[in-house]
Structure formats: C-alpha cells, structure tokens
C-alpha cells in the first residue's frame, strides 16, 4: 500500500488533520489524488508508532513460545512499530553475528522494526564483557545492552560496561536486583503476603540498592544508564535523586506494575509470577505518579511469552513472566489516561518518543509531519473489551489480563507506510 490517506485523525496537540502516506513517508495531504486508499479516522487519536524497549521474542531458541513473526504481530496489534528484542535467547545475543541474525529475522518476518539488544556479558554470565563494540559496529547497530533476566551485580563489570559503551553512545539497561539480598528461589515480593504464603521473596531494597549503586557509577563514568522495569517506590526515590543531580539515567515501568498487585499471587497462580515481582498497591501508586511526572521516562512491556508447560509447575518452579505487547496501551489508558495522570501527548512521549530516543532509533518516535517516516498508530479513546487470551497473535497464553475488562484502543498500526494491523480485519 503506497498511497494511504488517513482522514480526520486527532494529531495530539495539533488538532484534527489528514495524513497522507506515500512510499513509507508522510507527504502533503493536498497531494492526495483519487487513486488512494482511505482510512476514516474520525474520532481517533493518532500517535507516533509505539516503541517497546523490552520485548522477549524467544527466537532463536524457543520458537514454541514465540517467534519474531508472532511476537511482532502481537506488537503490531498493540500499536507498536518497533521492538527491542532482549538478548536472553539461545544462543544469547552476545556477538555481532547473533545480533545481525536477530535483525535479519526481523527484516524477514517482522511486523515491526526489530532491534536486537546486546548482552552486556558473555552468555549473560555476569563475568566477562560480551563484544559490545562489534555489536554496535555491526549492521544491527546495537545501542542498548542488557543482561536482562539477570542483574549485572558485579560493580566492576558494571563500571567497565558503562565506560566502554560511551564510545558509541550505547546504554546499559540494568535488571536491578541484588542476588545476595534474596534466596535463589525468590519468586514474589517480600512482605506480608510472601510471609503468609511461605514463598521466598525479593525485598524492595534488593532493587533500590542496586539502582543506588548504579546511578553513582553512571555519575562516575558519565555514561548512559537505563533501569529496566522499575517496580518499587524506593527505586523511584533513587532515580528522582539521580535526575536532580543530572546523572544520565532513564527508567522504564512495565504495564503490569502499573495495575496488578501482590494480591494476585494469593492463589499461587504462576500466571502472576513475574520478575521483578508484583508489588503492593502503595508501590503501584508511586509508579503511576513517577510515570506522570517523568521520573520514569518510558513504558516497556517486558513481554515474556512462555509455553504452557513452563507455567504449569508449582509456583516457585514455574517460569517468570507475562505477555504484554497486545495490552500495554490498554493498561496505560486505563491507569494513566482515565485518571488524568497523562495526556495523549504524554503517552506519545512515554511510549514512543522517549523509548526511541533511549534506543537511538532515528526513524521512530518522530513527529507525524510531512517528510517523516510513516510510523503511526490510530487509537480509539473510548472502546473497551474483555481480554481473551485466545484472541492473540502470540504463540503463548500467559496473559494476566485474561477475563478483565480494559480499553480496546488500537484501531490500526502503520509501520513505514505499511498497515501491519487493522482492527476487525
């Protein structure tokens, strides 16, 4: 589809207008001839295509749980036009060759741009640096490095990694969780409920103390640090302090941490087992406020598909993680727009502009303006749905929102001028 006219969408902050797309870019709507496809966007909001800093696509290695194709189609259904694919695949994305392979899978199968995240340490073992520079210089142009799933707990390695990636404007994305502050079997928030349920937990301090250390190393090294999936109020305090000192730190929050609480764990359903864990409601409130005031820069899904049999173990033994791509915007609308904590302009910042900026994606998070790449999502602010886990593009069904009523915002997603999702089609 090379000629598409989107009629009457609300371009947030700039009023209603038409958008004409030709050859993957926005062109002057006045040039629309008669030979165009039309998309009536009356009553819809147009946002720049969403960018997910934190997706697990599982390919290569666990193609039974998700593939680049299925995961990016889920992303497109969620309004995303770019995803950053985490490095904890098999093999790990810790070499230029592995990164180029993931990017190539994206180019071949993707319904969104697929940008590999490089591992910080070889094999995610937290001991030796992976080939960060070669990944950066490869055609995959890796800029975000993360051992996500594992905390980079060795302070010396963290310092070297932060220093090293400065050479190519890279960023280290930390899964903050001090492994010494909880047992290896920790599987939920440490607090009243973990004590009652007899489940080993992570205290909030295990996250905040690592962030406190890392922002100081970031200050020392003048490097870019990004904190993955902030889950507790204590971490927000540390990030706020660091930003006041002009330390180069950014942070993301996952949709589930904006809504679900530790109470979900009471029935021992591993659907609600996630790392970092669901926290009590007072943390959820603080995270919403931090996302509103910009202490937290971005929403990132931590979309973590798992085959059913990996979730059907005892709670402590089941896999960590939940799906997130298809429902992320719905949860943000429910928790942030409906409560007036964020405007649509802010949502564009938190889910597109800032993530694109953090990941240094030149073609994403751009204004919906003539000459720009045509990455756009059309949003119905009023529609609602009851989430059905079987109505999904993902190969997995570990959907914590199943059965809940949420907004149904995404009407159409267009990536580089190509319609990658259209509701009802």
């Amino acid at each position: 589809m090379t000629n598409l006219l989107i009629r009457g969408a609300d371009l947030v902050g700039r009023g209603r207008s038409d958008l004409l797309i030709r050859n993957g870019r926005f062109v002057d709507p006045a040039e629309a001839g008669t030979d165009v496809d039309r998309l009536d966007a009356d009553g819809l909001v147009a946002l720049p295509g969403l960018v997910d800093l934190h997706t697990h696509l599982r390919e290569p290695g666990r193609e039974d749980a998700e593939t680049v194709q299925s995961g990016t189609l889920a992303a497109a259904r969620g309004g995303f036009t770019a995803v950053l694919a985490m490095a904890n695949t098999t093999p790990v994305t810790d070499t230029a060759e592995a990164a180029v392979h993931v990017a190539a899978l994206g180019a071949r199968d993707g319904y969104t741009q697929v940008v590999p995240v490089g591992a910080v340490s070889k094999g995610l073992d937290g001991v030796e640096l992976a080939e960060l520079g070669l990944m950066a210089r490869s055609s995959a142009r890796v800029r975000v490095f993360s051992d996500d799933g594992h905390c980079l707990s060795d302070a010396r390695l963290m310092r070297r990694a932060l220093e090293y990636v400065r050479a190519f404007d890279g960023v280290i994305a930390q899964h903050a969780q001090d492994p010494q502050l909880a047992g290896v079997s920790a599987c939920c928030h440490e607090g009243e409920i973990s004590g009652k349920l007899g489940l080993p937990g992570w205290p909030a301090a295990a996250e905040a103390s690592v962030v406190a250390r890392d922002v100081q190393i970031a200050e020392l090294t003048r490097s870019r640090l990004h904190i993955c999936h902030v889950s507790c109020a204590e971490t927000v305090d540390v990030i706020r302090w660091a930003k006041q000192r002009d330390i180069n730190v950014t942070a993301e929050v996952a949709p589930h941490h904006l809504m679900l609480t530790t109470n979900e764990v009471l029935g021992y359903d591993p659907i609600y087992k996630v790392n970092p864990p669901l926290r009590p409601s007072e943390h959820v409130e603080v995270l919403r406020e931090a996302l509103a005031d910009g202490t937290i820069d971005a929403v990132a899904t931590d979309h973590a598909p798992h085959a059913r049999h990996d979730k059907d173990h005892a709670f402590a033994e089941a896999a960590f993680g939940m799906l997130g791509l298809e429902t992320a915007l719905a949860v943000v609308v429910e928790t942030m727009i409906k409560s007036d904590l964020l405007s649509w302009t802010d949502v564009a910042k938190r889910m597109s502009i800032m993530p694109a900026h953090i990941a240094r994606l030149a073609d994403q998070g751009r204004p919906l303006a003539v000459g720009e790449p045509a990455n756009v999502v059309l949003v119905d602010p009023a529609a609602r749905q009851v989430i059905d886990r079987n109505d999904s593009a993902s190969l997995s069904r570990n959907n914590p929102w199943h059965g809940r009523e949420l907004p149904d915002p995404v009407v159409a997603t267009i990536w580089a001028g190509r319609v990658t999702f259209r509701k009802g089609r």
Partner: protein
Amino acid sequence: MMRHLLSAADLDQPQITEILDLAEEMSLVQGRPVKKLPALRGRTVVNLFFEDSTRTRSSFEIAGKWLSADVINISAKGSSVSKGESLRDTVLTVAAMGVDALVIRHHASGAPWQASRWIDAHVLNAGDGTHEHPTQALLDAFTIRRHLRSSNPDLTSFDGKTVAIIGDITHSRVARSNVLLLTTLGAQVILVAPPTLLPAGVDSWPVLVCTDFDEVLPQADVVMMLRVQRERMSGGYFPTPREYTISYGLTRPRLEMMKPGAAICHPGPMNRGLEISADAADAANSLILEQVAAGVSVRMSVLYELLGGAE
C-alpha cells in the same frame, strides 16, 4: 462437608472440634487387636509425595488402610522442571486413574492449591513447602487437648492457654498451620525466634512475637520446639549451632523454668542437642510420641470427613 483440606484456615472451631472428637473415636481402633474399620472400603487414596517423608506418609498410609481404603504411594521426588513433566501433568495423570483423594506433599508452597484447581478428587495438603501442614496442626491440637483435658476433662476451647512456638518460623509450615488452628481454638500463640527466622509481615499475624525465649518460657502452657533444618545452619541465619542452642534450645536448665504442668511438643524429626535436649525430649511432660500416635487418628478422621459421607 469439606471438599479439600488445604489450609488450617479452612476450618472453623466447630469443624476442628468435630475432627478432633472423631479422632478420639478413631484412636480406639489403635488399641484393638484387629485395626480395621470398613468406612472407606472401595475408596482409593493416593499419597502423592514430591518430597521425602517417612512419618507423614506412613501415618497417612496407616490411616487410610485402617479405614479399609486402597492406599497407593507415589513418590515423585525431585523438581518437575528437571524431570520435564509439569506438576499439572503429574497431577492429572494420577487423577485420571480414578482416585478419590490425593494426599499431596510438595517441596514448593502452594502446590496442593494448584492441584485442587485441576482435578475433581479431594485434595489433602500433607505439607507444602514452607507454607502449611494442616494435619500436623490438627494432631498437635489433638495432643494438646488431651493433655489439657487430663486436668480439666470438660475443656472445649483453648481460651486462656498460651502456646509458645520456638524456632525457624520463616521456613516452618508447622508453625503457620499451628498459628491458624490454635488461634481459631482460642489459644494465645507466642512465636519465639531470632529476627532472622521471623517471616516478613509477621507483625500482622494474630500472635505475639518475642526474640527472648526465657521471657516467654514461664508463661507457656505448651512449648512447641521446631526442627532446625541443616541448610539453615550455613545460611547465615544464626552464627553457630552452639549459640542457637544456648539462646533458643530447650535445654535442661530451661526445663526448670517451665510452668508446672506445661507440656513439650516437637513435630519431629528432632535434632537432639540442638533445639531440644535429650532431657526435654524424654521428659515426663513431653508429648512427642503422643503426637505421632495422634497423627494416625487425626488423619483417619480427616480422611473420613473428606471421603466418608454419602456420595
């Protein structure tokens, strides 16, 4: 009519009393030359044990057999993750054989809850991870009630009685179930442990918490000592076994500090010389062997409650 017994919190005071009263009747069987009741003839009980246990498994096995149920033991030791079969598949497989009740012991907290959502059979929690062990709490209550009735035969509730539970509360399913059950029966429970072995959120439990054993000991009508697991000794929870024994062990000098008539309990197996001295374990006021005997009666009672009704 109970469907499952997962938590001691599932039971209110009348239900507990009914189970304990029935256990008293069941205990009469133990003294007979022919130890068999026909109550559960034709019913099948599977002991599905994902964790080693000698006393609990044999106690359930004897209880089922004395009630004439067909009892099968299945040992599924080791993590299901490492074996490649999910918990759900294991449970569905066993249930598909047509069992009436599954008695589940699992090293992970919550496993019996998950199982109860997957199958139609009755599920009985025989100890899940560091969470609960409701039949242990019932047999403890049974033993304590008998002990208290020896001086007050009409006793029905534990109002005004104090039970001290000493040891690794954090990792103890015995402690959690006893807190729930003994509190329901009216007892005041006092938990005694070093702060490293007190669970998160214990302040919200319906108990008193104290880190000084000697302060609590003279008030207790029952002193329940918990086993110290080997892995705690190297886990940094306390400096040395010696320090633990001196601070929290039921040593010979502490026997002198007990209230007259107070009883000693221990769920077993004991670490003699660590949390309990030989003098205490073998003392006249030790109920430890009575607890074991009560285990069979109480489990007969619970199996009958779950399976014995007209269906």
